[in-house]
């Protein structure tokens, strides 16, 4: 539940669209983990994440292009996952002239409350082509159990 973030809000309402504001607030309150999002997410905290699950694991994915795996720090404590790191961009060198500069360097830190209990010993992280995928095995008691129907 707590993965929902508090989106940036202007200090003062930009318009007098009170009903619109109210609707946004309500949409935010009713966004939950079932995937029902009333409005598309506008991410403010880096990095944006995608969370998914299957019967055994939770998966947290994030796009971290150009970040060295050694500069990514992942820690799990209880139901909290922390993702921290720094994106360093190599210097282009002396005497170059930039035409476009859209990529940015900097530090990041994000704390995610997981929607299920997990087994911290089995957590695995895979970094492939700049995409990080963290595999968090669900605690045995949180796994969905298959119940067989007996025929009498």
């Amino acid at each position: 539940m707590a993965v929902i973030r508090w989106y940036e809000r202007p200090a003062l309402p930009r318009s007098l669209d009170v009903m619109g504001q109210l609707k946004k607030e309500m949409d935010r309150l009713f966004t939950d983990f079932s995937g029902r999002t009333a409005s598309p997410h506008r991410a403010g905290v880096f990095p944006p994440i995608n969370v998914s699950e299957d019967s055994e694991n939770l998966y947290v994915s994030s796009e971290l292009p150009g970040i060295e795996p050694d500069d990514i720090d992942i820690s799990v404590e209880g139901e909290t996952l922390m993702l921290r790191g720094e994106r360093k961009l190599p210097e282009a060198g002396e005497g170059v002239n930039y035409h476009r500069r859209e990529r940015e360097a900097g530090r990041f830190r994000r704390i995610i409350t997981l929607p299920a209990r997990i087994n911290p010993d089995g957590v695995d992280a895979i970094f492939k082509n700049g995409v990080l995928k963290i595999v968090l095995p669900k605690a045995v008691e949180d796994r969905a159990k298959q119940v067989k129907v007996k025929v009498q």
Partner: protein
Amino acid sequence: MAEKDLEAKEKMELQTTAESTRDVPSYIPAVDIYESPEALTLVADMPGVGPDNVAIDVHDNHLTLRGTVTIEGEKERVLLQEYGVGDYSREFTLGRAIDQTKIEASIKHGVLTLTLPKAEAKKPRKISVKTG
């Protein structure tokens, strides 16, 4: 520079009238472009794209970058989606003559680096002025 905190930017989806043959969205990769006396270098963020899934095409003064992403985890149930996964596509018009035989490309951790050496004739030549 290193003291800065990163902020998330929404991925820009490519708006085009041409229909894609692939049923995935296309995004515009963020790029840096810089010029040295010898070459033009383009650096593009394409997370999820590996060396075999990049297509670079230079035609006259038109440069096209395309990266395709393999969509994984389709059997998983989505709980939260803050970013979209899809291909990358971006086109540029090159303002200078490029030596097309010497273009080099590499990709690492989802970042494509493209070095486009300038054609010999276009390199700045220093002309010394003699006094008569």
